């Protein structure tokens, strides 16, 4: 039944009806009525961030660690434009976020009013959909639709722009309805003929490979369970993208590690040499494929994706399957089990033997040191000392991110939050805050770099205000390490502006915010220091001083194929300098 209330109250009522417990935001002139309504209720808890960009990343961390929709509330103009990077990040990584923006009153729109910007125009290409509310009676319906669009199909961010006069106006509130959306109806159940074709290909495969992506995690915990079931039932090897880590347990013997530019030797070679590949909720990103015309050249490709535009976008596939990962895997399992398949056991034995030979290369090995903490060692020890606590890990972007992906091992989905598609430095701390908000009792660690952490350092203040005991583990090499690595590879070792000459004293910085600050530079003291960090009650910045010039290997240089990887152990300076061809240099 329709109830009458103000626009601001409609916003709160809609959030309550959508089951929202936490929102992340920052007040301002054009959104004050909604903040006033927030003040007068207790159901929805508001987390005050220190910059709107932090609010969106926090909502992303919240969403990715729970599977729920993350909600953001910001003001007009700069509030909305500060949110743009986060929205783009959420679009790239398919994270469900509803961002409610204040807007100048309707009669001032287009007048270049104070703190006015064309929010729907600016956010159109960086959201799944957006709305400008012009009638208070549309507000409730649009908000419910916004939640539906954000989480249905391939998830993504949406923006609802609410002018201030609409927030004050009185209108009818309607609750969420179960009426089907008139246009947006993503296909969940796959076409059965395609699924059967896929199962037949898998049964007859000699060198099969599963390739899982973030879509498995987005599909929900059931998808990860079904993936485990089908991988174990078939006995086939599995690799995953950066976004897919945790969908399949890293401790399993069928797990080959991450693939792609900084993936393992065995995962990339298996991808290159396989004869049947099943891409499950992955999108053949350029970081995965390397040189596209030499990507997995001999394989028949099955691609499961809920977004038809992902299929045949970068790589042409043989069996496209449009559908939800969980629905599709369920059908594949059922069909497989109904067949009592005769597998080519001999061929699979040869395949696994080959994989074991690649594994024997130990592509993640590195030369450890007694004098200085190697960054790989730092992440390894962090993993070993925290793995029994089921931690949630976020990262910033750069070398530390890749080391975290390589050396931290994930057993469960929704534990790993990183900016994969957009590569947003500054993502990790606010994302950790969001994840901690959702899991107050859990250990949440932002594995950070010394450059990235400064991009959203102000959110340290948010953690204090809301008593969020996040740990920031800075792999500090005093460089923008990944930029420097590329300058070594591409630009004759001319390290143009990739060295931060005046890093802050992170211990003092921590203390200034009311955090605990720690510093460690001796490998022998690392374990004790990490234990101390874990045992510290409140938030901690751990300044882990690592070898400054370590680089991230293995690596597929841009423009190269999977079988042209550089391994860390045997790479010479000359090889590094000549690793990338002229054509490769223009690639990102």
């Amino acid at each position: 039944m329709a109830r009458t209330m103000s626009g601001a109250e409609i916003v709160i009522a809609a959030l309550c009806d959508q089951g929202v417990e936490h929102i992340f935001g920052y007040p301002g002139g054009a959104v004050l009525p909604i903040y006033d309504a927030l003040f007068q209720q207790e159901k929805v808890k508001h987390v005050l961030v220190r910059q709107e960009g932090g609010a969106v990343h926090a909502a992303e961390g919240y969403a990715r660690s729970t599977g729920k929709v993350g909600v953001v509330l910001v003001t007009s103009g700069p509030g909305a434009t500060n949110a743009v990077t986060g929205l783009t990040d959420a679009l790239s990584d398919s994270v469900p976020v509803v961002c409610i923006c204040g807007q100048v009153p309707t009669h001032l729109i287009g007048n270049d009013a104070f703190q006015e910007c064309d929010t729907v125009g600016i956010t159109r290409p960086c959201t799944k959909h957006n709305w400008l509310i012009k009638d208070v009676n549309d507000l409730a319906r649009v908000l419910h639709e916004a939640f539906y669009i954000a989480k249905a199909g391939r998830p993504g961010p949406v923006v609802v722009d609410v002018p201030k006069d609409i927030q004050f106006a009185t209108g009818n509130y309607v609750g969420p309805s179960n009426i089907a959306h008139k246009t947006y109806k993503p296909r969940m159940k796959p076409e059965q003929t395609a699924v059967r074709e896929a199962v037949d290909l898998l049964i007859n495969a000699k060198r099969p490979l599963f390739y899982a992506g973030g879509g498995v995690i987005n599909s929900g915990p059931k998808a990860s369970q079904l993936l485990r079931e089908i991988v174990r039932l078939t006995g086939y090897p599995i690799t995953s993208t950066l976004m897919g880590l945790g969908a399949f347990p890293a401790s399993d013997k069928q797990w080959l590690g991450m693939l792609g530019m900084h993936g393992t030797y065995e995962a990339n070679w298996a991808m290159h040499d396989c004869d049947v590949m099943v891409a499950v909720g992955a999108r053949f990103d350029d970081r995965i494929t390397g040189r596209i015309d030499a990507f997995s050249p001999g394989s028949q490709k099955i691609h499961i994706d809920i977004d038809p535009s992902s299929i045949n976008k970068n790589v042409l596939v043989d069996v496209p399957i449009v559908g939800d990962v969980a629905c599709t895997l369920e059908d594949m399992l059922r069909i497989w089990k109904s067949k009592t398949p005769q597998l080519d056991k001999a061929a699979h034995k040869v395949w696994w033997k080959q994989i074991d030979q690649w594994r024997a290369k130990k592509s993640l090995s590195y030369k450890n040191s007694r004098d200085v903490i190697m960054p790989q060692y730092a992440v390894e020890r962090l993993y070993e000392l925290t793995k029994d606590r089921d931690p949630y890990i976020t990262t910033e972007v750069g070398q530390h991110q890749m080391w975290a992906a390589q050396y931290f091992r994930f057993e469960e989905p929704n534990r790993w939050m990183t900016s994969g598609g957009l590569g947003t430095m500054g993502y990790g701390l606010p994302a950790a805050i969001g994840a901690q908000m959702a899991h107050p009792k859990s250990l949440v660690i932002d594995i950070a770099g010394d450059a990235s952490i400064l991009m959203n350092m102000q959110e340290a203040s948010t953690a204090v205000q809301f008593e969020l005991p996040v740990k920031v583990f800075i792999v500090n090499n005093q460089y923008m390490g990944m930029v420097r690595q590329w300058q070594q590879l591409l630009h004759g070792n001319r390290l143009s502006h990739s060295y931060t000459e005046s890093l802050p004293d992170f211990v003092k910085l921590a203390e200034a915010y009311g955090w605990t600050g720690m510093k460690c530079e001796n490998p022998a003291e690392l374990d004790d220091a990490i234990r101390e960090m874990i045992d510290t009650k409140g938030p901690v910045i751990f300044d882990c001083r690592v070898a400054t010039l370590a680089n991230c290997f293995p690596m597929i240089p841009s423009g190269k194929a999977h079988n042209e990887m550089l391994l860390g152990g045997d790479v010479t300076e000359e090889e590094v300098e000549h690793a990338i061809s002229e054509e490769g240099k223009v690639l990102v």
Partner: protein
Amino acid sequence: MVNTFTKSVPKSHYVGPGAAQEVVSRTLSVLVDNEPGVLARVIGLFSGRGYNIDSLTVTETEHEMHLSRITIVTRGTPNVIEQIKHQLERLVPVHHVHDLTLEGRSLERELALIKISGRGEKRIEALRLAEIFRASVIDASTEHFVFEITGRTSKIEQFIQIMTELGLVEVARTGIAAIGRGPSSQ
């Protein structure tokens, strides 16, 4: 959404998407909710992803249901065209996308207004040719004509080319409106 993918894709993957494929012209008919910003979404998709628009026509076609039909003539390899269709279908206000060229036997028409300025022989010649092309005069003085011509793009192109020699000073064109033949709607 319909599971429509090009079935004729080569089984070898040494050919990158787009490479060695012929560029084709396609007419897409996109039925959308006529809501604010819907056109910006469609054209933003084309410019943002580097697709071509050769012609674009849009107006509300079903007033009670607030539906608009956007007719887009685009160019690209078959793989790119397939991407364009799937990207368009992903937009929330889009009801459906039809590839009229691929579905075959579609009707395409364009309207042009063409202004000819001058006196004497050329003026008479312009009028005579306009009759042959079934263009009608909708404005005239002793020094000018404005012709209205309807037809396929090729006919209009041809008419404009001829008129260029006969004092053409200005052209306004609607872009293509297209519809499928036969009794059924799409």
